[in-house]
């Protein structure tokens, strides 16, 4: 069995992520065991050698992402997977991958934190860490799947973004999406868009600048590339005191993501032009919005939603659009208001933003709970 063929499969979210990674061209995985991401690691350990790839277990999460970065610099696509505690440890190397413009994918199957928290239970508390976890000024591309199917499609997208923008991309899933088994449809492989990093043309030497996303050489091919996490000029030479070099580099690294926020923004929306009450949700929590919207409509409440597939850069335009009709927006999350403030900021006082939070025990916000909240909000006096 080489790569998966077109067809319908019954996969765990973790498995869908692994198969998608292989289709995207991933040939190296380094990981450290952690619930609830271990099944992805185990599946890669079985599958990557079958396609000529390598899966290794490292001594910790820093080493895992370090090996992934080394592999990426040989011209290969590489990924790692973890959960909250390991994601915290990886922050150092996420910053390094960003600074050195190393494409790679980091899957974080969120569980209930802080710290060890409830290791086997779902949470959505890493939203802000995914955006702001490493030190210094940086920008992150973060995608949030809500089904096994989307684990598949967004994993391919994560690799494509990583290669296109030469940056680490975070697949921010959660325990529920990672562990549940669902039907996954794999389209014809030839029809799946796969993006590969741009390699330098003969004579090109500015591997770290002079254009938005510079070409990326591989080591061992005679480019004499200097890779460093210290501030460096467009040729990779360390420049630790020059203010212009630092400004130019760090602004470009951020701009290459922020200037493409709209292109990166991915979401599903329903009735956002007419609804009076809007819902903004992501990941496992967003699975309740369909039934809740239906329930609300049966009660005569005009409801719509935006389901975010891109969390960062935050898709503020679609939220702004939603606020043109919806004057009340409910934000259900399995954390204590992490995306809520982003929605409130994007709404910019043109709508009232109402949180609906639930943490602990891996308990989902049910369609009934969300329906009740919609009803409560609809009945409130203006």
């Amino acid at each position, binding site marked *: 069995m080489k790569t998966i063929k077109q067809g319908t499969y019954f996969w765990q979210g973790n498995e869908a992520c692994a198969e998608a990674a292989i289709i995207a061209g991933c040939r*190296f995985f380094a990981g450290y065991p952690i619930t609830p991401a271990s099944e992805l690691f185990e599946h890669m350990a079985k599958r990557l050698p079958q396609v*000529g790839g390598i899966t290794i277990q490292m001594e910790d999460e820093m*080493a895992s992402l*370090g090996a992934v970065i*080394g592999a990426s*610099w040989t011209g290969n696509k590489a990924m790692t997977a973890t959960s909250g505690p390991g994601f915290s440890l990886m922050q150092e190397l996420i910053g*390094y991958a960003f600074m050195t413009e190393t494409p790679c994918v980091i899957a974080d199957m969120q569980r209930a934190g802080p710290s060890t928290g409830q290791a086997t239970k779902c949470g959505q508390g890493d939203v802000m860490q995914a955006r702001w976890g490493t030190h210094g000024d940086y920008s992150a591309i973060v995608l949030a799947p809500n089904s096994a199917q989307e684990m598949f499609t967004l994993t391919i997208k994560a690799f494509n973004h990583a290669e296109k923008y030469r940056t680490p991309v975070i697949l921010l899933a959660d325990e529920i999406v990672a562990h549940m088994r669902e039907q996954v449809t794999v389209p014809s492989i030839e029809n799946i868009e796969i993006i590969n990093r741009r390699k330098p043309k003969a004579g090109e030497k500015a591997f770290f600048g002079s254009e938005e996303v510079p070409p990326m050489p591989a*080591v*061992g091919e005679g480019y004499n590339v200097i890779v460093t996490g210290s501030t460096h000029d467009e040729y990779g*030479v360390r420049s630790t005191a020059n203010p212009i070099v630092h400004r130019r580099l760090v602004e470009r690294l951020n701009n290459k993501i922020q200037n493409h926020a709209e292109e990166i923004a991915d979401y599903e929306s329903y009735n956002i032009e007419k609804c009076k009450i809007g819902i903004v949700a992501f990941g496992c929590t967003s699975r309740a919005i369909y039934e809740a919207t239906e329930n609300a409509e049966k009660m005569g409440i005009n409801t719509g939603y935006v389901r975010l597939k891109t969390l960062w850069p935050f898709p503020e335009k679609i939220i702004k659009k939603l606020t043109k009709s919806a004057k009340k927006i409910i934000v259900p999350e399995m954390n204590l208001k992490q995306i809520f403030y982003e929605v409130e900021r994007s709404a910019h006082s043109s709508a009232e933003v109402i949180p609906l939070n639930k943490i602990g025990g891996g308990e989902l916000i049910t369609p009934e709970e969300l329906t009740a909240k919609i009803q409560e909000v609809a009945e409130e006096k203006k």
Partner: protein
Amino acid sequence: MTQPFLIRKYLRDIEMPFCAGCGIFTVMNTFLRAIHELGHEDLSKFVFCSGIGCSAWIPSPHFIADSIHTPHGRSIPVATGVKLLRPDINVVVFGGDGDIVGIGLSHFIHAARRNLDILAIMVNNMVYGMTGGQVAPTTPFKIKTTTTPYGSFEQPLDAARLAVTAGACYVSRWTTIHQNELRESIKKAMKIKGFRFIEAVSQCPTAFGRRVGFKDVGEMLKWFKENSVSIKQSEKLDEDELAKKIVVGEFIQRQRSTFVDNVYKTIEEAQKIDEN
């Protein structure tokens, strides 16, 4: 006829940031001389990985080569990724004692255990030099540093012996006065497969020597010369006497199946199972 050793052909024309009298110059020169004597006219068959600290700057950006200057302590993990996907390339790690056996210690042990096919050269100046002279895992007992102003109350780590225990295929330790031995050691290590570790005890006149009371670099080198003992000589010394000595020589040379070979054999086996 071998070409004369012209060090500048391996080096970028970039000013070196190291202090006058730093042992890094000796290690850099000795390494490149060894590479030259092995017949490498350039560094195109090498990828260098280094972490944070003065000695991590030996290859990056000075060597005309591919070099990856990683976060503190993470040179060996990055080297792991590079070597696994490019088994044909010589991967050499440079780092200080703080980088390799301080913050990066677990990576060092695990790379030796796996027998990862890389050469790791640790420049041991017994102190955190770049940050101003703080105590290191290699600082001798009772030595005063900026974070142990009354003398270190920790016992130092013997990195070379640890590498032997962990499974390295070649381990040696020399000081910057043992340039010939160090050069021959590098040449030998380059021809061996598996995890190879060379410790170069080196002088840091700025952040170590002057605080400890050495008047100049010459005094530090004299200290190395007078206190270096061979492995054989060291066997006759008791613990207190040994604590004041630098044990030099080759600690081990052996063959073990390497990580890269084992990984690729596994791929072959997995594909056979899959076909059946």
